[in-house]
């Protein structure tokens, strides 16, 4: 593989971060819960509280928060897209109308508030997922999913997808370079033309992927996959007190949020759904 161009989903932060030492199932459940809760909460203040709690908990668990900086550009990009789409394309009724566009869309005080909610929701999901991903080891996906009842073959296929998506990204970078070297102006000019040119990368990517998959299927079959009988698992993960506590906390938090959403307006956005 080419020097300095390695892509992997795993960051391998050290074990001072408590979540790294957690049972794989806890990590997988955390990932799910931290993405569900922000979807349930709609109001900006509780979302801000949730995000702050998340960061505080991560800090207490000695998470390497500085690593979040790497994801900040993506977050800003998404935030920009959210702001633009709500400013230019929404009709949320509110008390004060700030701008009204000729195409019938307008920006009110509620638009700004709702926009803030959406940005906070996405930020919470991104931060939560990143904090869990930072703790993931390559064996966690398979063992975590398996201990949650997912069949081994399916869990392994998911892990394999992670492994091969890294190779796919390398392939994409190479095909893109090759296109540039054939004079394809992928970075400038008419966006439609660029999209058309970029769509051509699908041809080699597909062919390379199909060839790779065929070799992979031969390799896997000769490695006895999928296992037909009893399979041994090299690693054995024990549940610790931390795992039990984390599991309980995640369950209580999810249940609490669901109940609060049903019984009280606290987590709902005032006026939602807009009519």
């Amino acid at each position: 593989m080419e020097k300095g161009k390695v892509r992997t989903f795993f960051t391998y932060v050290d074990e001072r971060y408590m979540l790294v030492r957690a049972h794989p199932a806890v990590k997988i459940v955390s990932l799910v819960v931290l993405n569900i809760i922000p979807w349930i909460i709609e109001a900006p203040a509780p979302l801000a509280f949730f995000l702050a709690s998340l960061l505080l908990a991560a800090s207490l668990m000695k998470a390497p928060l500085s690593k979040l900086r790497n994801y900040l550009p993506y977050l800003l990009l998404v935030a920009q897209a959210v702001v633009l789409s709500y400013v230019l394309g929404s009709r949320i009724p509110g008390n004060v109308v700030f701008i009204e566009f000729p195409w019938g869309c307008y920006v009110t005080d509620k638009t700004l508030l709702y926009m803030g909610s959406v940005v906070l929701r996405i930020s919470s999901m991104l931060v939560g997922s990143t904090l869990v991903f930072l703790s993931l080891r390559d064996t966690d996906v398979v063992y975590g999913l398996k201990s949650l009842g997912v069949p081994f073959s399916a869990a392994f296929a998911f892990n394999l997808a992670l492994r091969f998506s890294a190779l796919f990204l390398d392939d994409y970078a190479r095909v893109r370079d090759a296109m540039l070297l054939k004079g394809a102006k992928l970075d400038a000019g008419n966006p439609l033309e660029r999209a058309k040119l970029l769509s051509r990368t699908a041809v080699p990517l597909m062919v390379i992927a199909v060839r790779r998959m065929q070799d992979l299927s031969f390799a896997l079959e000769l490695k006895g996959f999928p296992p037909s009988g009893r399979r041994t698992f090299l690693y054995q993960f024990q549940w610790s007190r931390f795992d039990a506590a984390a599991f309980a906390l995640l369950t209580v938090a999810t249940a609490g949020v669901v109940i609060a959403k049903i019984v009280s307006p606290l987590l709902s956005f005032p006026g939602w759904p807009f009519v």
Partner: protein
Amino acid sequence: MRAVSVEDLWWRYQASSEWTLKGVDFEVEKGEFVGIVGPSGAGKTTLCLLVAGVLSKSVKGVCKGKVELFGKDALRTSVKQLSEEVAIVLQDADTQFVTMRVLDEVAFPLENFGLSREEILERVSEALEFVGMKGYEWKHPHELSGGQKQRVAIAAALAKRPKLLILDEATSDLDPLGKREVLSVIRKLREGYDVTAVIVDHNTDDLVEFVDRVIVLEGGRVVADGDPRAVFSRIEQLRTIGIRIPQPTELAFRLGAANGELPLTVEEAVKALAPVKDRLRLLDGEVLENPSRSEKLVSFTDVTYVYEDGTVALNGLSLNVWKGEFLAVIGPNGSGKTTMAKLMVSLLKPTSGRVEVMGVDSRALSPTMLFSKVGYVFQNPDYQLVCDTVYDEVAFPLRQLGVDEKVVKERVQWALVSVGLNGLEETPPFFLSKGERQRLALASVLAVKPQLLIIDEPTTGQDERNSRRIAELLVQLNKSGVTIVVITHDLRLVSEYAERVVVLNNGRLVTAGSTRKVFTEHLETLASIGLEPPPVARLMKELVGRPALTVKEVVLCERA
């Protein structure tokens, strides 16, 4: 005892009207090491996959005949049952790495077979020890070199304790050091492991060192099968088929100097040619770098390139590429060759120092500004083929330049004739063979008539005929005025065709000079970074004290 028995084996892929294998017959005895050679498309990989019992169950096709593996019908027995007896190591090390740790990779098949944890750990440790990868258990695939990955693949195969090990071009994609690492494992296997092996390789110089027998496949048929010495004595036949002859054999044959049996290895050739040692001469008038080359096409001045992850790929590199030269850039994996090439086409910008392409600072250039002047052909042509037909593929860069369609047609025809693909204009690129796809990628670059052509590993994984065809095409282009820069591990190609060599290691320039000078005066330096000149160079160094670059330049004088 018979390990493999193949009887009248025929195979046709469903999508094809041609039979890939046409009545193949052979047997392999237990403990035998058998080499399979043949040009690209001869059916070597198909044969290996059928012997392993995997192809007929995974891919749609028509199969006739019989394959027995240690008495079991390999075409009908389940892969699960066969997989405990046969292991295969393929060419692409990355594809075979199905987990993310060395330990997990070697343990994976054993876990699937349901062995106890204790036994798994014992076998993993033993296999890693055998291939010299002990201590690498927790390494991720991206932390390993190509040779190390293939050694892990062999360890994963050996951990199963298979009766048959198939190595299908397992060293083709490796640099010389990686190749040597894997070959030393095969040597060890032969010496002290109870296994039968089938080894497919284009590099016959290496193959003859390990095999008891060689089978030659051509067009899906066995055309020769026997002792390596007997098979490689049929030099004219093998040349016609397009099989690389081991250099010591070729030299002894050319000189007519071996009494009786032709030598296969350097050591054998030293003995065989010893009686005529005093009459051996080298036609090697010192070829210096062409002094008329004074126009710089590309210049590197104290160039350093550091990747985002901190890897220093080039470190203070200073050198020039002269107009009209045929330059080879060699060095082990990770030495900075590809980074150097990418700086020349402006895909990368130097971290420090200055790269000038045709007098312009590369920081002010982009690949799309340069592509009509500097062409780049990738090692794997598949990354470069993005159109539906051969014609459109070659026309693509011309159309990007806005060239008139009439001129496009002329240029496409010229480029296709140059690479020998005329007549295939309407064929979809991915229907071509690998050698043809490589030539198509070259044609699409040639169509814009670049002044400088950079070509990355043009002969890797190619058979002898395709390698020669590409090399000779490059020579022709060079003679017509195109400057050629070849990045390669193939030192046989370098010694036969390159005018000048640049040697890189760890991002630094080790040496540069005329090919003869580098291969004559810097043999130890090359060896120290894992680069081994072709066998004829070592052979003549041993016999007459001076290395030869090619077989052709060694002559036998009349006795005084």
